[in-house]
């Protein structure tokens, strides 16, 4: 049986991610898809810690660390610098967390896309600031506990909806936009190969579950990711030439099944789970309609 994803590894063993880290799987898959002629830009995030302290590195490609808000600008500069040296055939990749993308890095990303550089921006979405110990980000979903939405006696869980950065990138008409999940690596690899074939800014948002941050057993990382897609709380789609294509999972499961697996949602009453369920359904319907457009 042939392997369903590329065999070569460009992310190496011995990194210092937590056991069962979804963000690490994201990096592994992205590098498999993009190959050795790549450079990766990493702003402050778990991924600035995962490769470990000096003198260690975990990637077989150059990794440029940047300040937290700098990813979008750094890939722009790196791209133009490489092009000025005739290295048009190297991939320039940003690999940034949801905080570094939806929040402090949003305008850097948006501006890089607007300027049209030939780059790939990967947002590994673990839905909170994990490196600093699980604080709310704009990409944290409604209902979640984090240390800055600590529930408490006032039920102060996250009361706002998740900001879907991929939706913003579609609104900006980026040449290629996709969402992906580490539970579906073949799908991700296909999307990477499409992205690789397009000149201009590409954006891929990968749901990357985090055992300590979401408070589930590390063995369930892939399962949780799959449930996110099957429950439609994290729809997978692809946007190209202004056209949206939505992936319809063969198997669908209730949202509650996804939520119950995770400690971060364990405070929710049934009525609150209902609220989430209907918001998920509404978004799904609206994506279906947009697909028709």
């Amino acid at each position: 049986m042939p392997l369903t994803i590329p065999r070569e590894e460009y992310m190496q063993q011995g990194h210092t991610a937590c056991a069962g880290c979804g963000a690490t799987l994201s990096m592994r898959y992205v590098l498999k898809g993009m190959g050795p002629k790549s450079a990766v830009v990493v702003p402050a995030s778990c991924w600035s810690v995962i490769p470990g302290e000096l003198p260690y590195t975990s990637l077989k490609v150059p990794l440029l660390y940047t300040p937290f808000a700098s990813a979008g600008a750094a890939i722009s500069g790196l791209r133009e610098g490489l092009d000025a040296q005739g290295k048009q055939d190297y991939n320039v990749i940003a690999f940034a967390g949801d905080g570094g993308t939806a929040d402090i890095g949003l305008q850097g990303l948006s501006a890089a896309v607007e300027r049209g550089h030939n780059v790939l921006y990967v947002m590994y979405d673990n839905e909170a600031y994990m490196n600093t110990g699980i604080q709310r980000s704009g990409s944290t979903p409604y209902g979640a506990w984090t240390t800055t939405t600590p529930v408490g006696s006032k039920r102060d869980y996250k009361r706002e909806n998740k900001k879907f950065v991929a939706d913003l990138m579609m609104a900006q008409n980026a040449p290629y936009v996709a969402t992906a999940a580490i539970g579906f690596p073949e799908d991700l690899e296909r999307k990477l190969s499409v992205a690789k074939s397009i000149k201009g800014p590409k954006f891929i948002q990968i749901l990357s579950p985090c055992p300590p941050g979401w408070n589930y057993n590390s063995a369930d990382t892939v399962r949780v990711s799959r449930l996110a897609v099957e429950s439609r709380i994290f729809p997978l789609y692809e946007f190209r030439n202004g056209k949206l294509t939505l992936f319809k999972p063969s198997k669908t499961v209730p949202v509650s099944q996804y939520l119950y697996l995770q400690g971060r949602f364990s405070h929710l009453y049934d009525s609150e789970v209902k609220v989430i369920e209907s918001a998920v359904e509404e978004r799904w319907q609206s994506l279906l309609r947009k697909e028709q457009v």
Partner: protein
Amino acid sequence: MESVQSHRKIMTGNEAVAVGVKLAKVKVIAAYPITPQTTIVEELADMVANGELDSKFIEVESEHSAMSAVTASEASGVRSYTASSSHGILYMHEPLHWAAGMRLPLVMSVVNRAIGPPWNIWGEQTDTFNQKDTGWLQIYCESNQEAMDSILLGYKIAENKKILLPVMNMLDAFTLSHTSEPVDVRNQKKAAEYVGDLELDSKLDFKNPAGYGSLLGPDGPFMEMKKDMRDSMYNAIGTIKNEISNFNEQFSAELPGLTDNFMMEDADYALVTAGAISSTAKYTVRKLREKGQKVGLIRLYFYRPFPGEDVLKAVKGLKGLGVVERNLSFGQRGPTYEDVATSLYGRVDIPIRNYVVGLGGRDIRVKDFERMFEDLVEGDNEIEWVNVGVK
């Protein structure tokens, strides 16, 4: 055949800077507009649009991104440049530290402008004095000629393998940036030879991929890295002096040393200045000398590294010294005063006075300098605000 001589042209400081950038064969420019830096960027955009400059021009959405972009392009191995001013400089404070810590030989031009509130687009050096401890070398220009030449010199110094730190080149808002005066435009071929191609040993290497920037704890060589940066800057003084003589020789130019000592030989009283106000100060010194007063001026061409030994040498024998600041510290005397006092402490015992002048573009006139020279004779130790509240 093009002559290898400089030719003289009338241009503003900002034009001179843009030409300097072109002469240095910069490959990537990223910049964000802000008055009064804007015309530098516009000029460069024109050059690129007309094929006179073969450079990538990135129209970033902020100064934080400008600095982040050129840091990355420089790391990729090509000479990179940006320019800003005032709030733009404040907004890039974080990546300024980053660029220096990465040991990347960038050059940035700064048109010194006041900081709000209230908004004020006029001259004052507080913006870059607030960046003096970021790990960047700092050069304050007195003329448009220096503004052009310091770009070339800046790259030469920054890229020196013993230094490998970025250089910030300052010119005063309007007084230089928008003032037209004759400038000897250096010959392109010679300039290109002078700066050479960028050789950056630490550039992104695809053959032996590494991590650039990384993470380090209390047990790693963090402190050793910082000491190395400090040593590289502090010990650069000799190298800089050599590079300046070398530049002057090659271009028949007249850059000063790290300090520019004007009529200091037998002076009794002297002022310390930086930037374009030094010209008016020189005019005043000349005038007072004609009246027989033994006065002089020490201009700080370099402010980082601080040329403490040069200042010490220059002040020997003075009866009084005045340090003139076009910038502000709220909780202490001015920064230049602190640097001077630090360099002289325990080594001479000359009374030093401190003058704050020209904030927010307030004009600095000959009579102001005359008053300072008068005042110097009194020699007490408090801060003096020149031309304030007396409107």
